[in-house]
Structures are given as C-alpha cells and as structure tokens.
C-alpha cells in the first residue's frame, strides 16, 4: 500500500557555511513545504546557526569547518536517526527552489527510483556565465567517464533519495568532491537514479559563494587522494 505523498516523512538537509545573510530566505521557501529541515552549520563564524534556528529549522553544528560533503553526510546520518523515509539535500544560498524539490519527491515515490537528482541543464540556469557553464560541462564529462553513470549535471546540490539509498551511501569526500563521489556510489551500489529538470537561480550572492575554476583542480586532487586511500 503506497502512502499518500504528503505523509511521507522527508528530511531536507541544508549544508551551510557562513550563510547567515541568506539562510532565512532559503528556509522561508523550504519550511512551508517541508516541515523537517536540518541545517548543518559547518563551523561558521557568523550567525548561520541562530538565524536557521529562529527561522524554524533544526540545527546541528560542526565544531570545525569540514566541508560540504562532510556536512551532508552528518545531515543524512541525523535524518536517518529521526526516521526519515526520504532524505533530500538543498543548498543554503537560495539557488534552489522548494517547488522543484516537491516535484522531485513526487517523482521519487512515483517512479520507485532510489535517487532523483536535479539537473540545471535539463531545466533552467538563470544567470549562468559561459565560463561557469564550461567548467560544469567538463565536470560532467569527467564524472561520466569515471563513474559509468550518465548525468547531464553532476554537481547539482538538489537531490532526494530513499532512506534505504541514504543508508547505503557513505560520503567520505569532505569537501566539494562529494558530488562526484555520490554519483560514483550510485553506480557502484547499483542504485537506480534519474534526473529531473530544475531551475537554478544564480544571484550575485550565490555566484560569489560558488565554485571557481581553481577549485576544480582541488576537486580533482581530492578524488585522486580518495582513490589512493581506498
């Protein structure tokens, strides 16, 4: 017997580092549709945690800044302990839209997939510069080559997965390489996934916080180190 979609317990994990000025806006969009929101404050030195708490989210604080990948894994662990049936990730800077996540959850439950990932290249990427588009496309080529999973957008922070998938996925890449790692694990664990078009709204704020070209080399180095450690 399938549960009605609205009764499925979804926890939304929002990794946040120094997002004190944006987190309230993001949560104002998210909380009316998803009552269970966990903000993982990744050792921010600003008021991210208190802002998130005041906005109505549950908050966990890393005493040290570890990176987005580590924050997401902490959030997933917490969500599962709370009895989440589906776990989503959502960026703190306001580039995602809660309505997209609602559609993605419906798709996850309807399709019986393990993971649904948002794709800005199937949907819209408002305010995306040509240089950034090129970096993202290169990242996609790299991820497709190394993971064997075909994706149109490998580095989208908007995802939703079943509790079972969340339990099997284990993110070891603390920093930004977790996005590639996640796709790679989807391939290795044999999880079924599909992409859905989503709209990413780039603001000067989110672009300022976003990844730059030099970071791609760091991601590459992190991935190689991860392979060495295994």
């Amino acid at each position, binding site marked *: 017997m399938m549960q009605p979609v609205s009764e499925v317990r979804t926890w939304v994990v929002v990794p946040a580092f120094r997002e004190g000025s944006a987190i309230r806006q993001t949560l104002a969009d998210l909380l009316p549709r998803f009552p269970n929101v966990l903000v993982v404050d990744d050792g921010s030195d600003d008021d991210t945690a208190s802002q998130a708490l005041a906005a*109505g989210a549950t908050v*966990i*604080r*890393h005493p040290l800044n*570890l990176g987005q990948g580590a924050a997401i894994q902490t959030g997933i662990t*917490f969500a599962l302990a709370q009895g989440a049936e589906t776990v989503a990730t959502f960026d703190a800077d306001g580039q995602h839209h809660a309505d997209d996540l609602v559609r993605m959850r419906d798709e996850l439950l309807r399709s019986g997939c393990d993971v649904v990932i948002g794709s800005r290249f199937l949907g819209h990427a408002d305010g995306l510069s040509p240089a950034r588009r090129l970096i993202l496309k290169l990242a996609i080529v790299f991820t497709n080559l190394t993971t064997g999973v075909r994706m149109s957008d490998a580095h989208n922070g908007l995802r939703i997965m079943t509790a079972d998938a969340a339990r099997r996925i284990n993110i070891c890449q603390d920093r930004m390489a977790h996005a590639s790692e996640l796709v790679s694990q989807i391939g290795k664990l044999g999880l079924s996934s599909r992409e859905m078009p989503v709209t990413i709204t780039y603001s000067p704020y989110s672009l300022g916080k976003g990844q730059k070209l030099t970071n791609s080399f760091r991601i590459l180095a992190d991935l190689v180190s991860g392979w060495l*450690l295994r």
Partner: protein
Amino acid sequence: MTIQIFLTSMLGLVGVLVGAQQTTSRLVRVSILAVLAFGMFLVWAPETTNRLAGALGVGRGADLILYLWVVITLALILFLYLKILRLARRITQLTRALALTQPMRPEGPGHRP
C-alpha cells in the same frame, strides 16, 4: 675521518630512536635498522658505492645515493600524505559524532517567520 665519525654517530642516534619505537611494527623497525647499518658500512667503505653504481649502470656512487635518496623521499612524502588523509577522516568522524550529540531544535511547531 671527521665526516665518517659525524655520519656514524647520526645514523647511530637514529638507530637508537627507531629501536626504541614500540608503536611501529617489528618488521618496519628491523628494515630501518638494516638500512641504517648498511649506511654505516658505506660511510666506512665508500668505494663500495662506486662498485655498486657501476654494476647498476650509474656513473658514480654519490649519484646512486642521490637517486636512491630522491626515491625514498618521495615514497616517504606519499606515505605521510596518506597518513594525514586518514587522520583527517578520523577528525571528520569525531567532529560528526560530537555534532550529532547536540542537535538544536526550533522552539516548537508554528515558530516560523
């Protein structure tokens, strides 16, 4: 003669330190001690390196030592790097475990802007 005494005492000091390490495995300790002993032997019989170098197709004994040194140093750097990565993973696990013990809940339902 002076340099031989200096090098021998330095190698001997390292040997004592390595020998006293209870945490490293016996195999590693014995291997390091063997390398140190061979080093001491070469300090007092430097022509041996020239013969070894000739046999291996390297010009001079000093060059052979230099090449070996580079390889060993690179291997050590890689080893230490992996050790640091493993340490970072443990720090992550520790930080996560600590963070999970102190979730902060919003002040009841309906508390929304």
